[in-house]
C-alpha cells in the first residue's frame, strides 16, 4: 500500500548563495529520503510512467528496488534501458514524460521519478567503481561521429553486443552538449559526466577527440580506408540561430552557444582558465528554452543583472519547470510577451539597449500553441550591454555536404527512418542531427535504436 505523504522535497543550495557560484543547485536525495519518496509509488499494473519514458525504463520496478533499500537492484533495472541515469535524472523534462503521466499527479504531486533516478545513478557512481570489461570483440568495427548522448548510447549498446567501437569527437572533450552546453550548476562535469564517459570507455569503446567529421576524416574515408563497416552520425544540432534583426553584429551580442561553450567547455568562469567571457553589467537573454535558462543563470552568476525576454507568456516557456523556478529564485527577471526588434549600439559599436515590442497571444498555431502577435506602436527600449541569443540551433551541414548519398530535410536534418537508417547504406543517424534541437533522452533513445539497426545491418552483410 502506497504511503500517502507529500512529495519529499530535494535539498537545494540557498538561492542567494548559489546565484554567486557554479556548484550544483540541487543536492538530490539521500538514501533515507529516496526510500521515503519511493514509498509513495502506487506500482501501477499498467505503468503510465514507463510508457511515457522515451526509453521505457521500468520505473515501478526500479522504485521498488529503492523502497527495499536494494539500490544495486534498482541500478540494474535502470541499466537495462538507460546508460545515463545520473544525467537524465538531472536534465530530462520529467514533467512532460514520466512524472507528467504519474497517476498521483492527477490530484496531487507525482512521484519524484527524476530525483529517484538521479539518486540511483549517483549511488552507482559512488558505490560501483568503473571496471574495465574484458570482452573479445566480434571483429566488426563501427565508427560513431559525436560523443554526445546519442553517440554515447549507441556506442555503449554496440560495445555490449561485442562490436569494436570508436567514437570521433570534434571538440577536445567528450560529452557533446553534456560538456559544452549544460552548465556545471545543473550537471557537474568532473563527477557525473566524466563517470558516464568512463563507464562507456570501460566497455572497450575508444574515443578519439579532435577529429572533425567532414574535415579531419570523412564518412567515406572511415568506410573505405579505415575498415569501419558502419557509421553512426550523432553530431547534434550545433549551429546557432540568430533573429535577423538589425544590430546583431554589435559587440556584446553572443549566441547562447558561444556564451555557454566559453563558460562550460572552456571553464571561463574560473580564474585559472584563460578563455575570456563577458556577461556585462546587464544581460538580456532572448528565448525561453532550457538553453535560455542556462545562459541567463550563467550570466547572473557572472555578476550581470539578467532578464529573459520571451515573446509568449511564462506558461508557454519550453524550458523544464524546475529550471524556470530556479531562475526565478535566483533573481533572473522575466520580461514575457516581449520581442526584440532591434539592438541599439553606442558610438563605438557596443550594445547599449534592445528595442522591443510588446506581444499578445493570438490564435493557436499548428502546434497548438497560441502564436504571439505584435501590439502596434508598443515599442520600448531595455538598457543593456550584453545580449545572448538563445533561439535554438540547427544541424551542422558539414557531414551532409561532404558525404555522397546522404539526404537532408528542408531544415537541414539528416533523413533517417525510425531505426536510424539514412539514405545511404551503412550510415545511420540519430539525435539532434536528425530531429533538430531536442532532448538528451530522445537522443539517447535514438542512439540505442540505431545500435540495434547497425547490429542487424552488419549481420546481414
Amino acid at each position, binding site marked *: 500500500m502506497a504511503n500517502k505523504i507529500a512529495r519529499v522535497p530535494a535539498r537545494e543550495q540557498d538561492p542567494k548563495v548559489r546565484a554567486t557560484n557554479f556548484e550544483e543547485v540541487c543536492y538530490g536525495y539521500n538514501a533515507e529520503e529516496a526510500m521515503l519518496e519511493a514509498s509513495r509509488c502506487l506500482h501501477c499494473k499498467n505503468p503510465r510512467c514507463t510508457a511515457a519514458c522515451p526509453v521505457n525504463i521500468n520505473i515501478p520496478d526500479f522504485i521498488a528496488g529503492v523502497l527495499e533499500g536494494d539500490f544495486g537492484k534498482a541500478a540494474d533495472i535502470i541499466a537495462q534501458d538507460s546508460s545515463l541515469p545520473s544525467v537524465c535524472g538531472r536534465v530530462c523534462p520529467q514533467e512532460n514524460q514520466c512524472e507528467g503521466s504519474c497517476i498521483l499527479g492527477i490530484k496531487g504531486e507525482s512521484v519524484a521519478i527524476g530525483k529517484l533516478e538521479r539518486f540511483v545513478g549517483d549511488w552507482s557512481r559512488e558505490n560501483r567503481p568503473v571496471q574495465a570489461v574484458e570482452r573479445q570483440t566480434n571483429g566488426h568495427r563501427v565508427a560513431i561521429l559525436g560523443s554526445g548522448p546519442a553517440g554515447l548510447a549507441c556506442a555503449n549498446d554496440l560495445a555490449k553486443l561485442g562490436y569494436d567501437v570508436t567514437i570521433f569527437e*570534434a571538440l577536445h572533450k567528450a560529452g557533446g552538449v553534456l560538456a559544452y552546453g549544460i552548465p556545471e550548476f545543473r550537471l557537474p562535469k568532473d563527477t557525473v559526466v566524466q563517470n558516464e564517459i568512463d563507464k562507456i570507455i570501460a566497455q572497450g569503446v575508444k574515443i578519439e577527440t579532435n577529429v572533425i567529421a567532414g574535415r579531419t576524416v570523412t564518412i567515406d574515408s572511415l568506410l573505405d580506408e579505415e575498415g569501419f563497416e558502419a557509421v553512426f552520425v550523432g553530431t547534434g544540432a550545433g549551429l546557432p540561430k540568430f533573429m535577423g534583426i538589425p544590430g546583431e553584429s554589435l559587440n556584446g551580442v553572443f549566441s547562447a552557444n558561444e556564451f555557454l561553450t566559453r563558460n562550460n567547455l572552456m571553464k571561463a568562469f574560473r580564474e585559472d582558465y584563460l578563455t575570456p567571457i563577458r556577461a556585462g553589467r546587464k544581460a538580456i537573454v532572448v528565448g525561453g528554452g532550457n538553453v535560455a535558462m542556462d545562459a541567463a543563470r550563467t550570466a547572473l552568476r557572472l555578476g550581470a543583472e539578467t532578464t529573459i525576454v520571451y515573446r509568449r507568456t511564462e506558461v508557454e516557456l519550453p524550458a523544464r519547470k524546475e529550471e524556470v523556478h530556479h531562475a526565478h529564485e535566483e533573481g533572473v527577471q522575466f520580461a514575457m510577451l516581449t520581442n526584440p526588434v532591434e539592438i541599439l549600439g553606442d558610438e563605438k559599436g557596443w550594445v547599449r539597449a534592445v528595442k522591443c515590442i510588446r506581444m499578445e497571444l493570438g490564435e493557436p498555431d499548428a502546434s497548438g500553441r497560441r502564436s504571439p502577435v505584435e501590439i502596434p506602436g508598443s515599442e520600448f527600449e531595455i538598457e543593456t550591454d550584453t545580449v545572448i541569443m538563445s533561439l535554438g540551433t540547427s544541424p*551542422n551541414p*558539414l557531414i551532409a555536404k561532404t558525404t555522397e548519398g546522404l539526404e537532408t530535410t528542408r531544415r537541414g536534418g539528416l533523413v533517417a527512418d525510425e531505426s536510424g537508417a539514412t539514405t545511404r547504406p551503412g550510415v545511420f543517424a540519430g539525435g539532434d542531427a536528425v530531429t533538430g534541437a531536442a532532448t538528451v533522452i530522445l537522443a539517447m533513445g535514438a542512439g540505442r535504436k540505431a545500435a540495434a539497426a547497425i547490429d542487424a545491418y552488419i549481420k546481414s552483410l
Partner: protein
Amino acid sequence: MYKIISKEMLTPNICKMEVEAPRLAAAAKPGQFLIVRADEKGERIPLTISDYDAAKGTVTIVTQAIGASSKDIVSYEVGESFQDVVGPLGIPSDFCEKTPEELASEHYVFIAGGVGTAPVYPQAKWLKEHGVKVDVILGARNKDLIIYREALEAACDHLYICTDDGSEGFKGVGTAMLEKLVNEGEKFTQVVAIGPMIMMKFATIMAAKLGLPITVSLNTLMVDGTGMCGACRVTVGGKTRFACVEGPEFDGHQVDFDEAMRRQAQYKPEEADANEHHVCKIGRGR
C-alpha cells in the same frame, strides 16, 4: 600526440613549430586553419596552417607571441606536446577546386603581412607546383621582421620585399608595391591578401582601385571553430557569414572590414587583464 618536432624563432616573438598531428596533416589543404589548445587551462587558439607533410604526419604553425595564450604556445619546446591540435578547419582556397585549364591563364599575386606571411607559403607552393604564375609581395615593418623569405623565394616566381622604413627592398607598404607593379605593366588576375585585418582592408581598397579581384583570409575570434559558437560572424556582401565554416577566405570586396575589426577587439579588456595577471607556466607540469 601533438608533440613538437622542431622549433625556430623567426623573429624575437614569432615562432615556427612543426607539430605531430597525423590525421590533420593528411587532410590539410592550402587556406585552411587549425586550433591549438596548449594545456588544460588554455584557450582554443585558431592558427592558419603554414605547412603540412602527410608523409611525416606533421603540420607547421607560426605564432606571434602577443597575448597570454600565444605566449604560452610559444613557450613550448621541442619534445613537449600540446594538449590539443584540431583541424583542418575551414574551406580550402578556391584554386584547389579549379581545373588545370582554368588555372593556366591565372597570375596570382599575394600580399603577405607580418605573421600572415606564413600561411601564404602553402598557397604559393601549391600554385607553383601546379604550374600557375605566382608572385608574392612580402611586407614587414623593418628588415629584421621579414619571415619566410627563403621558403617563399623557392615557392614563387618573383618575391618582392617591402619594409615600412626602407631598411630592405621597396620602402612602403605592400599595397603600394602592388600598385607600382600593376602600373609597371604586371597583369595579375587575382590578388590574395593575408595579414592584419587593417592591411587586408587597405589591400582591398587598392585592389578595387586597380580593378582586381581579391581574396582575404579573416582571422576572427573563434571558440570551437566548427560553426557552433558564432563568435566569428562577419558581414560579407551584406549577409552574416561564419568565418570558421564558410571561410576563412572571402571575397575582400564584399567584406565589412570595419565591423570585423571592431568585433575582433571584443575581448581586448579581458585579454589585457589576462596578459597582465597571467602566471607563466613554462616548464610546469609537462
